[in-house]
């Protein structure tokens, strides 16, 4: 690999590392939802999370 190409590659890696740390990016499978009703706080049972445990397997929610 060319030295210049490697330098550019390395700088991209450093930038990605800094960005990942600053923004908190990571590989954890977390589902972000955008339409959570405000009423959940008053009625927690009404919310169906995207991950629910049924017996021995995980099933995606609604």
């Amino acid at each position, binding site marked *: *690999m060319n*030295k210049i190409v*490697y*330098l550019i*590659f*390395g*700088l991209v*890696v*450093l930038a*990605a*590392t*800094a960005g*990942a*740390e*600053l*923004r*908190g*990016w*990571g590989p*954890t*499978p*977390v*589902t*972000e*939802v*955008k*339409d*959570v*009703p*405000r*009423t*959940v*706080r008053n009625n*927690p*049972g009404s*919310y169906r*999370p*995207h*991950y*629910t*445990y049924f017996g021995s397997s*995980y099933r995606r*929610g609604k």
Partner: protein
Amino acid sequence: MTERTAACPNCGAEIEFRWSGAVQTSCPACRSVLVRHDIDLTRVGTVGDVPPSMSRIQLGTEGSYKGKPFVVVGRIIYEYERGHWSEWHIRLADGTSAWLSDAQAEYVITRQVENPGPLPPAGSCRAGQSLAIGGARYSVSVVTHALYAGVEGELPFEYWDKLQVEFVDLKGPGEQFATIDYSDATPLLYTGASIAFEELHLTKLREESPDSGARVTGVTGLNCPQCGAAIELRSGQLAQTVACPSCTAILDARDPNLAVLEKHQTLVKRVAPLIPLGTAGSLGNESWQAIGFQVRGVVVSGVTYYWREYLLWNEQQGFRYLTEYDGHWNDVVVLKGVPRETSAGDRPQVEYNDTTFKHFQSANASTFFVLGEFPWEARTGDQVEADDFVAPPYMLSRERTPDEVTWSLGTYTRPERIAQAFKLPNALPEPRGVFANQPNPRLGAARSLTTVFAFLVLGLVALFIWRFTSARDEPVFSQGYAYSAETGDTAAFVTPVFALGGGTSNVKLSIRTNLSNAWAYYNLSLLDENGGRGYDVGREVSYYAGVEDGERWHEGAQSDAVVLPAVPSGRYYLRVALDRDPGAAPFSYSLAVERDVPRAWPFLAALVLLAAPVVAAALSSINFEYSRWRESDHPWSTSSDSDDDE
């Protein structure tokens, strides 16, 4: 003081002395050899026909050595197996004299050493032998038995009635040179150094004449006595052997009739040189002409490995070689000095020009085919002991015969450089495999990447330190809970609202339990107090332990943590829904939330990514070296090889 002129006692011609210390001179008119006794000249003999010389040095030639002007005043000519060579007697401006040896376009200036101490007796030296003389260590490079062939001009001693003379040439560190002259009962030692033709700044040289033999641009034409084909002698009198380009008969170039030495070359099929003989090219700032070609080879484990050698000729520089094996070329010059032999463990090595050369291979090299002319008696079947030492891109080679040891230095040269130098119409074949002194192209890449890698790692460390010192790493929520099977309390619940400050960053959710031989599954949702945005994650915590066959075991863990990425600042709460092992005993757990937690793994991942190209380049470089040494006498061994050996 003696007179500067005198009359020849034989013919009366005026004899002019260029050097006041001359003991012997010759009359240019009647060719009498005259010995001076004080003011009298005595005729002691007659100079025979001086052999024709292709050297442009002559009596009266002027030059300089180490800044001291000199003039050539005399000459002794010897004949040996490779033809003639001249010892020119030179008078320096400071009144001293020295000898300028001129053999096969190689020049050495020596002076006699007074009281040199004990010298080995005649006939006792062997090529390659190490000698300590006058505090210096020399190696015998060649033992020559020469025939006296004539004298000219002024000499510092009487020298006109010799027959066979033994000379032992010695080479020392650098370009130091010495020779032991056994022409008298007491051997004489001369020491000095090799010198390049241009460093002598010679003037008043003999004019080139059309029939003087070799010039790079001149050719002496002859015909093969076997097939009648035209033979060209480009190096003139230096040529000892010439192989007919048509029938490949090997001819004696010293014989006016070109006596046939070898009728047919049968060891290998005729090989066409890639550089046609007669082609002139430029190497460095000098013009060289290809005049000889030979195929040589070594036999290893029953397999013959052939390479090709081209003999190049330049009138002032002498000879030079190009070698080619599987497309790998080397530009080879004969060393004027002798490398210092050392060893590393049981492996020999040599030092030359502050460079260590590792032993690569030793073998008996044979000549299989020759074409063109050579300054030695080239024959098929000629054998030498060859030892190669490498320090890419250089290779030192030692070739030994019973009478001579020759060191040469090869420099790896790309084929396109050769093609360009000789203006070859077609591209030369690309190199195949890895050659002994081929520069490792991957080594440079690995080294340059390593330098960049070091800078990048420094940047990464700086980034790491900055991150771990500037992160908020802030606990924002922590609460303990209890679960009891009796209550069956698995309903979802929410935590109090907590604030996540700063910019968009991660959030770490931690679960700690005292579960034992049970599991629990946590549906966790980090939800914005005002609705809309939320993050769902499911985590299982399970811990089992026991004793089996007297050994304790456990699996799982009583705690868990997860980092939610890129959560904007705001006010949030956790919705918690717990699924549990139906048979679980009552247990307690706690939930904790931390904001902007620094993590080490992204830095470790970055380090791995940065190191990957460097490691790949290093492995590639190592593989190249492995391939190089696999062909040597010292292949790299693996542990399995060692096991096999055992």
